[in-house]
């Protein structure tokens, strides 16, 4: 399970028609798709067709973005479990907004599986899937720094932008530090279940690990920040974002997305 943050960032520097689209457009597109998906009625089997249509559209965009299959698989593998839990629960639950339940099976302990519950579970999972796909597409085709500057152009307050940038930068520092500390311990035969040493000592070491992780990352981060200052960085200089023109392909893709959403809504009745 090694998806380092650098690798994640790397994918965003590919060259493809999708990567080239203006960041603002990509953000708005993503929001439009997510908001539409979430807005679909709670219990309507037609939803599944609409969501399916959107999912196909997103997959096509991913293909145009030339994202590697193994990379995408990893991204989905990380994201999907978050939504699975609650969805998998639905068939057993009596949703308050559903009047009649058709019982499909009765399990031991009197747990009943209802068709409506199952349908609702499938629908929220489908919604979740579409939203995740949209987010993965966005975050795989736009570098963090550009995401921030695009969000700035869309009105993100500069303090948030600055702190967000710093945070992303320190992600790498922290990640690195974690690796270093683990190596340091491994080299010297540290093992949590080691029976040669008192339990108390091991617990203490875990505590030290967490504290040195934070303190050393912080100090490393501070030194890095100082060296950024040395190279002429100051908070205001960074926050300046130049103007950027929206081009014809940008408008095209945005219109296409809205059109697809409209088509899903109007055609699939």
């Amino acid at each position, binding site marked *: *399970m090694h998806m380092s943050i650098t690798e994640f960032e790397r994918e965003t520097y590919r060259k493809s028609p999708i990567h080239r689209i203006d960041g603002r457009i990509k953000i708005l597109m993503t929001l*439009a798709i*997510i*908001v539409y*998906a*979430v*807005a679909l*009625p*709670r219990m309507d089997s037609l939803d599944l067709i609409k969501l399916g249509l959107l999912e196909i559209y997103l997959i096509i965009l991913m293909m145009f973005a030339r994202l590697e299959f193994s990379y995408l698989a990893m*991204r989905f*593998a*990380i994201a*999907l*479990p*978050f*939504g*699975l*839990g*609650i969805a*998998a629960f*639905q068939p057993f*639950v*009596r*949703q*308050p907004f559903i009047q009649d339940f058709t019982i499909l099976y009765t399990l031991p302990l009197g747990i009943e599986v209802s068709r409506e519950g199952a349908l609702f579970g499938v629908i929220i999972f489908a919604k*979740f899937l*579409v*939203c*995740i796909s949209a*987010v993965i597409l966005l975050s795989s085709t736009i570098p963090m720094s550009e995401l921030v500057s695009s969000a700035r152009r869309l*009105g993100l*307050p*500069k*303090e*948030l932008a600055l*702190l*967000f940038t*710093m*945070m*992303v930068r*320190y992600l790498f520092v*922290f990640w690195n530090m*974690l690796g270093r500390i683990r190596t340091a311990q491994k080299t010297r035969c540290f093992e949590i279940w080691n029976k040669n040493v008192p339990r108390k000592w091991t617990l203490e070491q875990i505590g030290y690990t*967490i*504290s040195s*992780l*934070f*303190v050393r*990352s*912080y*100090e490393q*981060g501070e030194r*890095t*920040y100082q060296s950024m200052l040395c190279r002429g960085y100051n*908070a205001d200089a960074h926050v300046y974002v130049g103007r950027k023109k929206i081009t014809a392909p940008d408008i095209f893709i945005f219109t296409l997305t809205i059109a697809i*959403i*409209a088509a899903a*809504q*109007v055609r699939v*009745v």
Partner: protein
Amino acid sequence: MHIPDGYIPLEQAAVYWIIAILFIARSIKWARKDLNENMIPLFGVLAAGMFVLQTINIAANLLIPVPMLTGVSWHVVGATLAAIIFASPWAAVLLITLVLAVQSLFGDGGITAMGANILNMGIIAGFIGYYSYIGLSKLSIKRPIAIFTGAWLSMILPAIALAFELWFAGTFPLKQGALLMGTFQGVAGIGEGLITVIVFGAIIKARPDIVEEDAPQKVSTIKVAAAGIVALFGLAIAAPFLTSSNPDGLGQTANVVLKHEINSAITPLFSSYSIPGMGEMGKVAAIVIGFAAIIAVWFVAAKILKKGST
């Protein structure tokens, strides 16, 4: 703990978002005034640290794919830590907002649901954690215990809030939800408490220059008392639902009230997703309008902040 997209209906998500935006705007004011430049690296590292620790958790999740736990996975929240270190609950709101934003890019927690997530893990957790810590410190309780309790409460109360939110959304029954997530977070809260105590202790020891040790004494007692009253009030409202044998029945009563309060304002626009007389196109138009409305709120908030900054 992170609610994904699609699990709460849009109109409810919008309400949470509006609350969140108000709090975020105020927390940005805090940053502008009280976050000096030397503290920026610490802020960034803490935010990054919260994220990385949670990423390790993602890995653990994949190793132990217990479906029930994945939706409500254990997370180091860190709101209390941030609030105590920066001596302000607003720091927690801001920091958690950033963490949630990056997490949502990894698919952990939704975009529309982010408002609710910020409400639980940033606002409720931050304020509860901070004021519990301050309150206990004022009662001259030992610092580690005060921190631990604050951090523990900041895990368990948001879990109850979450149970309510999912219940409103109709995706999870209230009592089971509260019991399940409460227990879960109650246990996870022990880890959270320990980590908060350890990290805070380490930072104080390594860099006494950056953290004010006597900050608790400076907070006015009135503020702490007010925070306590708000929290108790919240619990007083929640308790009947949690103890009732038929919370859904109570919910229906509550719903009647809520319909008049919130839903009546939002339902015509969102709930049926249509504009009368426009047929299917009307639904599309309604969504576009709703979408535009959220962006408008965003813009207005940004504008107000911009005015303040120059």
